[in-house]
C-alpha cells in the first residue's frame, strides 16, 4: 500500500486543473453538493487503479472511463485528461510518481520504474476497494445474505480462492472418471483371463492348477508359487512360444462375445434413453438449448480469461475482474441448463463405461479374426472398436453428448451389420480347424495365459495408479476445503469482532454492549446485530438508517483491516462520513485516529460542520483540508482557501465572464466572512439551519472588528503604549476606508449575485467591486504569514493576532 503525497489533476471528470498537497496524512475535502469533491476521488482512484468505479460499477450501464472520464469539453481529446500522483510506499521507503492518461489507462508512467515500485503500484491497482462511496456502504448491510456473501467475497478476493477450489474439484472429477475407466479395463482383462483359464475366481491356487496341468503335460516343472515375476510359460522353447493361438480358448472368447452380444440391445439402454429425453427437452425449448450452449461457451471462456480482454469476443473490459463477474453472472442465470448439463454428463459417463467394456470384449476376437486371415471381419471389428473408444471420449463432454442424439436414438452401440453372422462364421471356421495336439494345445494355452496375465497385471497397475491419483486428488480437495473453511471462519470471526468493536467505539454512549454475528453457510453470509441487548436481529430490523450506515462503514473498515493488515495505509471515503450521525462524529474521528493511525483517509463531505469537527477532533488540520465553495463547468471546483482567487476572478473578467467572477467573489466572501465570524467571535443572530448568508456574516464581522479596534485602542492607552495605539489607529483607518468603498459598491454585488442581472454588468462595472472587497479582506489578513487574523484565547480573549504575530493587537487594558 501507499500514501498520497500530492495530486495533479487535469481535465478529468469535472476538474479542469487542480493541485492538492495531501502531505501523506488524512485529508478532508469539503464543499456543497456539486462542488467537485467526488471528481477528486474519481481522479485519485483513476490515477491509482486506471478505473473509476462510479462509471463502471453496478447500475452504470453505458458509462465508460474512456468516454466519460475526461472533462465534458475534452471528450474528443482524452489525451488531455490525466492524473499525476506522487505517492510514498512505506514498505519500500520510496516515493514514486504515477501518471495515468484516460486515453491509455492501463499503461501508467511510473517513475522510478523500479520493479519493486511497479509491483507495489500494481497491487494497489488490483484493489478497487480502496474507494468507498456513500452509495456502496449499504451493499454490506442491507442486502440478502447470498449477495452479501458475494460482495464480501469480492472485496476479500475470495473468488480467487473459489477458483482454486473449483480447479481442485475438477481435477478430482477427471481423475475419478479415469479411475472408473481403468477399473472397467481391469474387469475386462480379468474376465478374459478367467475365461481362458476356465476358472471362476482369480485365486492363485486355481490359476496355478489350470496352468500346471498343461505344464505337466509338456514335462515342464510345475510352478509352486505365483509371484509378480512369475512367467506362466517359462521353460517353453523359444520356437514354441511363437504362436499363441489356442483353439479352445479362442472358441471360449468367441462364445463369450456371442453371448454378450445377446445383451447388446439392452446395454445401458435406460441411460441412453434418459439422454435422448433430455436432448428432446432441449430441442423443444430453444431458449434452454441456447442457455446450455451459452453455458458451455461461457465456461470455456471463463477458463480462458487471462486479462481484461474477453477471449470469446475480444471486447476489452475495464479489468479482468469485471469480465469474470460478467461471465459468472451469465452462468448463474442458467440454473436449469446446469441441471440438465449435470444429468447429461452423468448418464453419458454410464454409457461410456459400457462402451469400454464392449471394446474390451472385442479385442481378443479381433486377434482371432486376424489370425484366421479374416481381413474383412478384422477390419470391421477394428473400426467398431475405434468407434466405441471415440464414443467413450465424446460421452464425457457436453458438446460430445449433445451431438450424439441420432447415434443414441439409432442405438449407441452401432453393432455392425452382419456382425452376428460374421461372428458365427468365424466361430465355425475356428471350430473347423483340426484339433490341436495335446502338446500344442498346452503350449498355446500357456503362451495365451501369460499374455492375458500380463494384460491383467498391466491393467491392475494402471488401475492402482489411477486409484492413487484419484485418492490424492480427493484428499487434496477435501484438505483444501477444510483449510479454507478454517481460515474463513477465523476471518469472519476477526471481522465480526473488529466490526463490533468499531461500532461500539462510535456509539459508546448508547450501544456500549453492541455485538454482531456473521454466520457463513454455503453461499450465504448472514449478519445479525444486537439491538439494545434485546437480541440479535437483521441490521434493518430495528436500527435507524443512520446507524445502518454507520455499520456499513465499520464493516468496511473491519474488512479492510483483515484484507490488508498493517498494509492498510490508504482509503478514499467519498461522502461516507455523512453516515455517522452528528452525535457520534468525534468518536468516529477518534476511531480513525486510534485504530488506524497509519492509514491515510481522504475524506469528502458536503457538511461544513463535519469538516470543522474533523479539524477540532484533530483528525485533520488546516493544512490537510481543503474546501470547495462551488463549481463551474469552465473552472471546475473553486477552492475557498485559494489565495489565487483574485487571479481567477481577474481571469474570468478578462474573458468577459462577469457571472463567473461575481459568483467566485460571492463564495469567497461567504467563506472568509464565516471564518472571520468564528475567529473573531462576531455576534450573529442564531439560525437553526446554520444557513448563514453573506448579509448575516459580513456586517457582523465588520462591527466586531470595529469593536475590537476600539478595545485595542483603549488598552493601548491604558498601558501608555503609543506605538500600539498608532498601529490600531492605522488599521482602523484602513478598515473604515475599505468598508466605505464596499458600501458604495454593495448594490452591484447584491444585484450580481441575487438578481442574476448578469446582462446589465460589464467588466468595467464589476472591476471596482472586486478591488473594493480585495482591499477590505486585506484588512483581516497578514501577508507575511498568509493567515487570517483571530481573537485569542477564545474564552476571555486578550489579543487579535495573526499566526506570525506581525499583527498583534492587545485588547486587555491595564488593570486599575
Amino acid at each position, binding site marked *: 500500500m501507499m500514501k498520497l503525497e500530492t495530486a495533479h489533476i487535469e481535465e478529468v471528470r469535472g476538474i479542469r486543473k487542480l493541485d492538492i498537497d495531501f502531505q501523506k496524512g488524512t485529508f478532508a475535502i469539503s464543499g456543497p453538493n456539486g462542488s467537485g469533491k467526488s471528481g477528486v476521488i474519481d481522479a485519485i482512484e483513476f490515477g491509482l487503479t486506471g478505473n473509476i468505479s462510479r462509471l463502471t460499477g453496478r447500475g452504470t450501464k453505458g458509462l465508460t472511463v474512456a468516454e466519460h472520464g475526461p472533462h465534458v469539453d475534452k471528450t474528443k481529446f482524452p489525451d488531455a485528461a490525466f492524473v499525476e500522483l506522487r505517492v510514498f510506499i512505506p514498505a519500500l521507503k520510496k516515493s514514486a510518481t504515477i501518471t495515468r492518461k484516460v486515453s491509455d489507462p492501463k499503461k501508467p508512467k511510473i517513475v522510478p520504474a523500479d520493479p519493486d515500485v511497479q509491483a507495489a503500484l500494481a497491487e494497489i491497482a488490483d484493489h478497487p476497494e480502496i474507494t468507498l462511496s456513500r452509495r456502496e456502504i449499504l451493499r454490506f448491510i442491507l442486502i440478502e445474505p447470498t449477495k452479501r456473501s458475494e460482495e464480501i467475497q469480492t472485496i476479500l478476493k475470495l473468488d480467487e*480462492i473459489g477458483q482454486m477450489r473449483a480447479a481442485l474439484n475438477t481435477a478430482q472429477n477427471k*481423475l475419478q472418471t479415469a479411475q472408473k475407466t481403468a477399473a472397467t479395463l481391469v474387469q475386462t482383462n480379468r474376465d478374459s483371463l478367467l475365461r481362458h483359464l476356465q476358472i471362476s475366481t482369480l485365486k492363485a491356487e486355481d490359476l496355478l492348477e489350470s496352468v500346471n496341468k498343461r505344464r505337466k503335460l509338456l514335462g515342464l516343472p510345475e510352478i509352486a508359487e505365483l509371484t509378480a515375476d512369475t512367467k506362466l510359460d517359462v521353460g517353453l522353447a523359444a520356437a514354441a512360444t511363437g504362436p499363441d493361438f489356442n483353439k479352445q480358448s479362442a472358441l471360449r472368447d468367441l462364445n463369450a462375445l456371442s453371448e454378450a452380444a445377446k445383451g447388446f440391445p439392452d446395454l445401458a439402454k435406460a441411460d441412453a434413453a434418459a439422454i435422448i429425453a433430455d436432448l428432446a427437452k432441449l430441442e423443444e425449448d430453444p431458449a434452454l438449448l441456447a442457455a446450455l450452449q451459452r453455458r458451455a461457451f461461457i465456461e470455456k471462456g471463463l477458463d480462458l480469461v487471462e486479462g481484461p480482454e474477453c477471449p470469446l469476443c475480444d471486447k476489452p473490459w475495464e479489468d479482468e475482474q469485471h469480465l469474470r463477474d460478467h461471465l459468472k453472472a451469465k452462468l448463474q442465470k442458467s440454473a436449469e441448463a446446469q441441471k440438465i448439463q449435470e444429468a447429461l454428463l452423468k448418464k453419458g459417463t454410464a454409457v461410456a463405461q459400457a462402451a469400454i467394456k464392449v471394446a474390451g470384449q472385442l479385442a481378443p476376437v479381433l486377434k482371432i479374426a486376424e489370425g484366421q486371415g479374416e481381413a474383412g471381419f478384422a477390419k470391421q471389428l477394428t473400426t467398431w472398436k475405434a468407434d466405441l473408444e471415440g464414443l467413450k471420449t465424446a460421452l464425457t463432454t457436453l458438446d460430445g453428448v449433445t451431438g450424439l442424439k441420432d447415434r443414441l436414438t439409432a442405438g449407441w452401440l452401432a453393432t455392425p451389420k452382419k456382425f452376428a453372422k460374421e461372428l458365427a462364421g468365424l466361430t465355425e471356421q475356428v471350430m473347423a480347424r483340426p484339433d490341436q495336439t495335446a502338446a500344442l494345445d498346452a503350449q498355446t494355452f500357456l503362451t495365451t495365459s501369460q499374455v492375458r496375465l500380463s494384460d491383467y497385471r498391466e491393467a491392475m497397475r494402471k488401475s492402482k495408479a489411477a486409484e492413487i491419483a484419484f485418492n*490424492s486428488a480427493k*484428499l*487434496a480437495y477435501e*484438505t483444501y476445503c477444510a*483449510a479454507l473453511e478454517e*481460515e474463513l471462519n477465523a476471518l469472519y470471526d476477526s471481522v465480526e469482532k473488529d466490526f463490533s468493536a468499531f461500532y461500539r467505539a462510535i456509539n459508546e454512549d448508547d450501544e456500549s454492549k453492541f455485538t454482531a454475528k456473521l454466520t457463513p453457510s454455503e453461499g450465504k453470509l448472514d449478519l445479525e446485530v444486537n439491538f439494545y441487548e434485546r437480541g440479535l436481529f437483521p441490521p434493518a430490523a430495528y436500527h435507524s438508517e443512520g446507524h445502518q450506515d454507520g455499520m456499513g462503514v465499520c464493516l468496511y473498515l473491519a474488512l479492510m483491516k483483515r484484507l490488508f493488515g*498493517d498494509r492498510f495505509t490508504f482509503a478514499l471515503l467519498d461522502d461516507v462520513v455523512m453516515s455517522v450521525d452528528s452525535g457520534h462524529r468525534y468518536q468516529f474521528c477518534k476511531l480513525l485516529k486510534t485504530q488506524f493511525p497509519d492509514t491515510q483517509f481522504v475524506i469528502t463531505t458536503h457538511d461544513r460542520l463535519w469538516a470543522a469537527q474533523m479539524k477540532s477532533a484533530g483528525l485533520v488540520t488546516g493544512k490537510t483540508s481543503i474546501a470547495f465553495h462551488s463549481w463551474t463547468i469552465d473552472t471546475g471546483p473553486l477552492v475557498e482557501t485559494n489565495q489565487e482567487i483574485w487571479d481567477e476572478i481577474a481571469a474570468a473578467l478578462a474573458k468577459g465572464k462577469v457571472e463567473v467572477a461575481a459568483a467566485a467573489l460571492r463564495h469567497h466572501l461567504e467563506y472568509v466572512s464565516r471564518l472571520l465570524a468564528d475567529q473573531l467571535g462576531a455576534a450573529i443572530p442564531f439560525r437553526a439551519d446554520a444557513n448563514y448568508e453573506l448579509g448575516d456574516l459580513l456586517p457582523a464581522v465588520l462591527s466586531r472588528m470595529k469593536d475590537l479596534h476600539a478595545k485595542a485602542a483603549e488598552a493601548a492607552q491604558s498601558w501608555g503604549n503609543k506605538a500600539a495605539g498608532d498601529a490600531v489607529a492605522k488599521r482602523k483607518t484602513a478598515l473604515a476606508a475599505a468598508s466605505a468603498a464596499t458600501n458604495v459598491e454593495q448594490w452591484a454585488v447584491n444585484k450580481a449575485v441575487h438578481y442574476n442581472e448578469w446582462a446589465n454588468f460589464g467588466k468595467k462595472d464589476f472591476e471596482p467591486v472586486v478591488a473594493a472587497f480585495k482591499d477590505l479582506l486585506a484588512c483581516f489578513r497578514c501577508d507575511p504569514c498568509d493567515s487570517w487574523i483571530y481573537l485569542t484565547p477564545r474564552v476571555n480573549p486578550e489579543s487579535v493576532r495573526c499566526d506570525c504575530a506581525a499583527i498583534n493587537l492587545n485588547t486587555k487594558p491595564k488593570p486599575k
Partner: protein
Amino acid sequence: MATLQQQIAEKFLAKLADSKQLDADKIEQLKKLLADSRKLKADEFVKVFSLPAGGDIK
C-alpha cells in the same frame, strides 16, 4: 502480512504433510504450483496427482 490466499495455501500444504497420506514429491509439486500467483488449471493438478508415488523415475 500474508494474504488470505497465502494463509489458506500454507495451511493446506501443512495439513497434507501432517496427514502423511500424500507423497512428499506431490506436496512439493503442489507447493511450487501454489507459489505461482497465476490462475491454476485443473489439468495442472491432474498432472501432479498422477505422478508415480515416490517420483517420476520408476
